[in-house]
Structures are given as structure tokens and as C-alpha cells.
């Protein structure tokens, strides 16, 4: 079976939704805005519930089960609790920046979903620069986080925010390079076209890119094992120390919203989006998002945290070279077979990925050692 170019595939074209469904530009915009808002907010609450119960079961205990059947209303209870809390602003804080920060951090999370296809052609705007838009917009969250750290007038919050910026900027690069490898195979930046091009899911063709993307994206959204900024072993709670009430809820939503966004993007570009037999396409989309998120929860439960210098070392010394090598190899493959990649390349790519990871594990050392210190008495 040859992975075909989207231009040749007319079967799916017929079933695609027209870009101004249901009746004109503004109705299309309204319907999809409502769908996206409902989708994001409901699924974020679902994710919070799923994480707490999933992590609980993996730790030999039950998660929350008192509020509502199976604890399903627990996120609602959390939301209500957070809403009735007092909104405290530090006295020396920069009020405008402090107030704007959660908004600047949360909006890109919603904006990312404008280009994610729920079904063939069912997206708010089928931009032909789809994935580039996603990368650009999701970087704005980092600005919001820095505004939070700066506006808090707290030394440790600023420290946490600066570390966050450093890690986000460092991990952008391998993530973007691995996305480029996928785009090379698919032949288009638009997310809908990427899904249409996946007769076989791209994770089979690009195992290394999937790994790099997943690790890099987990690091960008500060999820375990990279959650050193919210960890107890850090001195304070990082950039959102000085936040309470609804603003803190927004940061909390940002964390899970970004997890949802990353799951959606991973499902779209690596696992084949809404494609699948029998079941309706949006159901396949939800199943794939759930699978990716389950993997994130699983990793969070099992793996300890890395240190900040180990985090940087992982990005620059491990992921970045591997991403570059993967890009070169993918480029070569696409050059040799421009009509579509033959299936035996699956095995070739897996073999190359295994060799590279083994090789890098030999050559690469995580982090500094002990620093020689002139004793200060």
C-alpha cells in the first residue's frame, strides 16, 4: 500500500464538509465557536476527573467518589470552591499586568482549537497554514506566564517564570522540527490535509518524531516528569504563587487545557485524527485524545521529576540533534519517493529510531555534577 498524496484521493473529498456549513460565514463561525467552547470546557473538566481517578487507581486507591456518581461532579465542586475564594492581589503588584496575565495565558488554548478537525472539513477555519498557526499561537501562553511572574512582585515567582520561559523556548525547537518532518510527508501545513494524507497513521512512519514531539510537548506544558515549577521540592509554587480565586482557576484551566490541546494535536498529526472504521469520526477523535491523555497520566504516576539543568540538557543535547537527524532522513525519503512512501519504510524508520536512541544513550550525560565551592563561613 502506498501512502498517497491528498490531491489524488477523491473518495474523502466527497464526504468533506463545505467551508461555510451550515449557512454562510457567520453561522459557521457561531456554530463552531460554541462547539469549541463547549468541547474545551467540558473535556477539561473530564480530564481533571480522569486524571484524579486514573492516578488514584494506579496508586491502589480510589480517586474522588463522594461528589456525584463516581465523583464526576468533583471538578464542578472544585470550580465552585475556587469561585467563592477571595481574590488577593499583592500590594506592590503591577495591577494591570497581574490582571491580564491569566487572560493572556488562557486565550491561546482556546485559539488552538480553531484549526483542529473534528471531522472531515469540520473545523472553524481550514487555514492552509494550520500547524504553523498552532505553533505560533501556543507560544503566546509563555508570555502570559511571564506576565504572571513579573506582575506578582515576588522574587520566587519571577524565578519560576523565568525558568518556565527558558524551558518553553528550549523545547519549541525540537517540537517544531519534528512537526516539520510530518509536514514533509503529508505535503501540506493544513491540519485537515494532514489527516487526509494518513492512510496509515504517521506514528508508524515517524516513531522518532512522535517521541520527540511527545516529550517536548509534555515539557512545554509543564507536566510530569517536567513539572518542577509546581513541585513541592521547589520553594514556592512557581509563577502562580500570588494568585487566588478565579485567576488561579484560569491558570489551572490553562494547564489542563494545554494538555487537551497537545493531546488533540498529537492525535491529529500522528494518530490519524478522526479516521477509523465503523464508529463516527468525532468519536474516534475523542477516543484518540483519551488515549494520549491516558498515556500522559500514566507517565505522571510513574516517573520522578527532573532537575532544571537536566531539563535543559534533555532539550538541547538529546532532543534537538535527534530531531535534526530525523528531519534529514525524512527529507531524503520524501525526495526518493515523492508519490508516497512505501510501507516497508515503517520498519526502516523504526530501526533507525532504535539505533539513534541507543546511540544517544551512550553519548549523552544528563546535567552537571557538583560545583566546587569556596566555602563561605
Amino acid at each position: 500500500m502506498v501512502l498517497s498524496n491528498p490531491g489524488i484521493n477523491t473518495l474523502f473529498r466527497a464526504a468533506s464538509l463545505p467551508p461555510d456549513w451550515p449557512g454562510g460565514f457567520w453561522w459557521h463561525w457561531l456554530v463552531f465557536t460554541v462547539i469549541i467552547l463547549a468541547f474545551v470546557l467540558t473535556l477539561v473538566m473530564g480530564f481533571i476527573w480522569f486524571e484524579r481517578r486514573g492516578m488514584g487507581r494506579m496508586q491502589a486507591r480510589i480517586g474522588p467518589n463522594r461528589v456525584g456518581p463516581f465523583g464526576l461532579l468533583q471538578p464542578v465542586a472544585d470550580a465552585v470552591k475556587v469561585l467563592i475564594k477571595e481574590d488577593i492581589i499583592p500590594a506592590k503588584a503591577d495591577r494591570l499586568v497581574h490582571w491580564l496575565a491569566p487572560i493572556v495565558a488562557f486565550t491561546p488554548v482556546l485559539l488552538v482549537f480553531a484549526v483542529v478537525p473534528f471531522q472531515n472539513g469540520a473545523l472553524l477555519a481550514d487555514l492552509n497554514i494550520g500547524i504553523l498557526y498552532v505553533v505560533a499561537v501556543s507560544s503566546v501562553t509563555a508570555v502570559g506566564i511571564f506576565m504572571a511572574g513579573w506582575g506578582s512582585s515576588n522574587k520566587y515567582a519571577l524565578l519560576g517564570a523565568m525558568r518556565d520561559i527558558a524551558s518553553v523556548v528550549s523545547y519549541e525547537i525540537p517540537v517544531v522540527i519534528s512537526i516539520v518532518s510530518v509536514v514533509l510527508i503529508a505535503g501540506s501545513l493544513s491540519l485537515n490535509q494532514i489527516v487526509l494524507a494518513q492512510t496509515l497513521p504517521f506514528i508508524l512512519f515517524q516513531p522518532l518524531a512522535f517521541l520527540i514531539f511527545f516529550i517536548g510537548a509534555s515539557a512545554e506544558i509543564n507536566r510530569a516528569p517536567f513539572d518542577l515549577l509546581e513541585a513541592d521540592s521547589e520553594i514556592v509554587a512557581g509563577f502562580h504563587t500570588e494568585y487566588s480565586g478565579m485567576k488561579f482557576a484560569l491558570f489551572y484551566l490553562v494547564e489542563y487545557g494545554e494538555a487537551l490541546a497537545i493531546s488533540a494535536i498529537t492525535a491529529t498529526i500522528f494518530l490519524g485524527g478522526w479516521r477509523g472504521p465503523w464508529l463516527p469520526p468525532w468519536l474516534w477523535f475523542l477516543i484518540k485524545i483519551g488515549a494520549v491523555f491516558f498515556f500522559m497520566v500514566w507517565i505522571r504516576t510513574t516517573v520522578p521529576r527532573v532537575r532544571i539543568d537536566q531539563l535543559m540538557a534533555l532539550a538541547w543535547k538529546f532532543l534537538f540533534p535527534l530531531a535534526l537527524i530525523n528531519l534529514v532522513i525524512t527529507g531524503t525519503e520524501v525526495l526518493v519517493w515523492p508519490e508516497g512512501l512505501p510501507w516497508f519504510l515503517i520498519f526502516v524508520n523504526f530501526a533507525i529510531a532504535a539505533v539513534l536512541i541507543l546511540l544517544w544513550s551512550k553519548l549523552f550525560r544528563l546535567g552537571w555534577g557538583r560545583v566546587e565551592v569556596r566555602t563561605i563561613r
Partner: protein
Amino acid sequence: MKFERYGKGIAKGMMVTLKHLFRHPVTVQYPEQRLHTSRRIRGNELVWDNIKCTGCATCAKTCPLGAIQIVTSVNAVENKYKVEKIEVDTGYCIQCGLCVEACPYNALFMGYAYERAKYRRAEVIQTNEALLASKERQPSGYAHPEIAEKLPEQTLLLERIFEEE
């Protein structure tokens, strides 16, 4: 050439966590489900038998904290001690059980119940009749094997959870 640190450790760890997902959790949903405590539990109150007690106050002397107060008077006719007041400060007591072990007449027992929280500090101090055994104040089998035999067996986590090896 030996390869290490390529991710195998993380993968093995994740298999363990996944296995736990399919096991029965060990949580007990209190207060709907309760476990049987030990037969010798040193629950946080004392139970006094005023018929066997002779007022010798060995328990008060043995208590490391002095949480037991006994005031007796002599019944000159029968030449016996009469216990006027016995007061136990259950808030001060550390439930060590030395008083129960020390009583030579088997007149003192530790309590079997453990949900004995009170709302006021004054209610924690118990005197005279409040120390007698009743339906809510069962004696436990600490240092009294004849009572321990009649109490229900302790629920052990070893028995409750079955795991395939």
C-alpha cells in the same frame, strides 16, 4: 557494547503502574465500611468495675502522667475503702495501658471504642459513674485475655486483599 539508560527502566516501571490499575484498591470507605479493630485495642477511654475495685489506687500510682485521680474514704464499720471519687482525664491520658496492667483486682479495662471525640474539653474528663461499663463503653481485651476471646477477630489487610503472584 553494553547499553543502558535508554528508557527500559521507565518502561518497566510503567508496567507495574499499569498492573495496579487492574487491581482492587485497598481503600475502606469509612464510615460506611468499618474494620474490626484489634481485640487488645487501647481505645481512648477507661472502663471501671466499681464492684471489684477496692480503692487501692495502684493504677493512679502507676500512671506515668498522673491522669487518674482517686479519693477514698474509710468505711470504718466494714474496714474497707470506699471510693468517693475516681476521675480520669482522658484528654491527658496517653493510652499506655500501664494502669490496666497494674490493677491487682482486674477492675480496670481499656475501652474498646475509638470514636470517642467530644466537642468540649470538659466532657473529656470522666468521673465515677461515667466510667462504668455500658453498651457504648465496652471493655477491650488489653491485659484481659478472657475478654479478648469474646471480641470479634481483627480484620487484617493480609486477608482482605488478594493479589495474584
